[in-house]
């Protein structure tokens, strides 16, 4: 398992298959991607490679011949490429092509489908804990509406009727907003291509959702947003990450209250997002385990143990990093770091 030198891999073909391969292999430390190639300069895999600072080339002979490549992964689907490789590959390199590369592509697709399933399962399990918050937030305006309507049936003062009718309209709007937020959150993450997501707005949206999952009573909110913070990714998945981290932070302060700090910062082409609490903290020996699947400190039935695992999966997929600082009884800070998204959209190299 342990290699001192990473395996050098060249990827031929930068369509959807090539890009998926790139995304996957890029996360594995024992693999070094020496380059990726495609005939189409606008191929999605080439664009992704540029953001990851992986060499892009159109020169196949140079790529496979001159960089000490140990494994050539051919996902061009082009029979001529297969023939060419058989004749020209360096003797020390292995080739993965034809049906083998198609099988690999299928496995990757299957894994990404499983990943999406896991995400959705965890999200839906979490929504169960929203019941108390939703009931509270819907029944309170309903009480107001009912009380006012009962009063209106007897009210003689026109000005009072007017004012109470407006109160009812406001209460109805508040109630319907709850349903809108929740249905948006509970739907399956849309598989659309990555877009530029405004982080500050996404954090605020997550805050609204997290309020259903946990009581924010006795919690002070501190927001330190840098305007214009944006990252490239799937907005639904990013929302899920933030809801998860905010909910954890609030749960950590359940006993004694505290301060929840949300901070965004753009610095040197990077976006830092910090979610801090002043809660119970994580024991040092537990920290290495928190991103493992099925790790939970919550009571049976309270947590799926998949929250931070999914957070980590999404963050890695977005080419970000997540770090934790925590002190028992003082609190925890989760820091997410992503490449800052170009607001105008990338594309031209």
């Amino acid at each position: 398992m342990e290699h001192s030198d990473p395996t050098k891999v060249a990827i031929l073909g930068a369509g959807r298959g090539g890009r998926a391969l790139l995304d996957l292999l890029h996360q594995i430390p024992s693999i070094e991607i020496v380059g990726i190639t495609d005939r189409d300069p606008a191929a999605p895999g080439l664009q992704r490679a540029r953001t990851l600072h992986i060499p892009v080339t159109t020169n196949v002979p140079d790529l496979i011949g001159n960089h000490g490549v140990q494994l050539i992964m051919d996902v061009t689907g082009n029979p001529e490429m297969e023939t060419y490789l058989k004749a020209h590959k360096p003797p020390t390199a292995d080739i993965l092509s034809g049906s083998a590369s198609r099988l690999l592509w299928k496995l990757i697709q299957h894994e990404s489908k499983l990943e999406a399933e896991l995400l959705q399962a965890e999200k839906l399990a979490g929504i169960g804990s929203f019941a108390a918050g939703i009931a509270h937030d819907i029944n309170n305006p309903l009480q107001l509406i009912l009380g006012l309507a009962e009063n209106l049936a007897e009210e003689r003062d026109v000005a009072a009727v007017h004012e109470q009718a407006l109160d009812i309209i406001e209460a109805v709007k508040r109630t319907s907003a709850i349903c809108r937020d929740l249905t948006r959150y509970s739907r399956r993450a849309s598989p659309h291509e990555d877009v530029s997501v405004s982080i500050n707005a996404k954090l605020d949206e997550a805050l609204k959702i997290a309020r259903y999952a946990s009581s924010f009573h006795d919690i002070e909110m501190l927001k330190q947003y840098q305007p214009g913070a944006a990252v490239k990714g799937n907005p639904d998945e990013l929302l899920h990450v933030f809801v998860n981290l905010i909910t954890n932070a609030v749960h950590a302060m359940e006993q004694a209250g505290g301060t929840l700090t949300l901070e965004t910062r753009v610095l040197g082409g990077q976006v830092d997002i910090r979610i801090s609490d002043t809660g119970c903290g994580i024991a040092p020996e537990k920290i290495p385990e928190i991103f493992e699947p099925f790790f939970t400190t919550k009571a049976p039935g309270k947590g799926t143990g998949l929250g931070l695992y999914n957070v980590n999966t999404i963050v890695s997929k977005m080419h970000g990093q997540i770090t934790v600082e925590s002190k028992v009884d003082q609190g925890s800070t989760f820091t997410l770091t992503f490449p800052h998204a170009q607001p105008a959209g990338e594309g031209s190299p």
Partner: protein
Amino acid sequence: MSDFNSGFFVGGEACNGRVLVVDDEPDIRKVVKMTLQKAGYAVLEAENGEKAIEVINSGENRLMLDVMICDIRMPKVNGAEAIAYFRSNYPHVPLIVLTGFPDTDMATSFLRQGVVDYLVKPVEGEKLRSAVARAMEQRELARL
């Protein structure tokens, strides 16, 4: 139903009893107050358990308070803690729970602690008034 001969006077008007409403939502306090004032009750308000304890311990309220209506999900001393406190320190003041979240286990535990009624929002005015009237009857018995 809400006519009690023990009525006293608040601000020159006949008063059927003094009710303390504990809820963190101003809207709820407003509408409960509106509903109960129509039946001749004087309504005091508190936004959380801590404030409620302050109100109940201040001046004449200690003697004059007849009924409490209390929410569960609240900041500071939450409803469940407040209810336990009130039941042990003011057992003579009947208590009605008015909550947005129906929870059978919680309801059973409250009723065991001697809570008069467990009402789930939204509750009709008539139902609320009759719950308060029942609580007033208990209060009268406690005075005997």
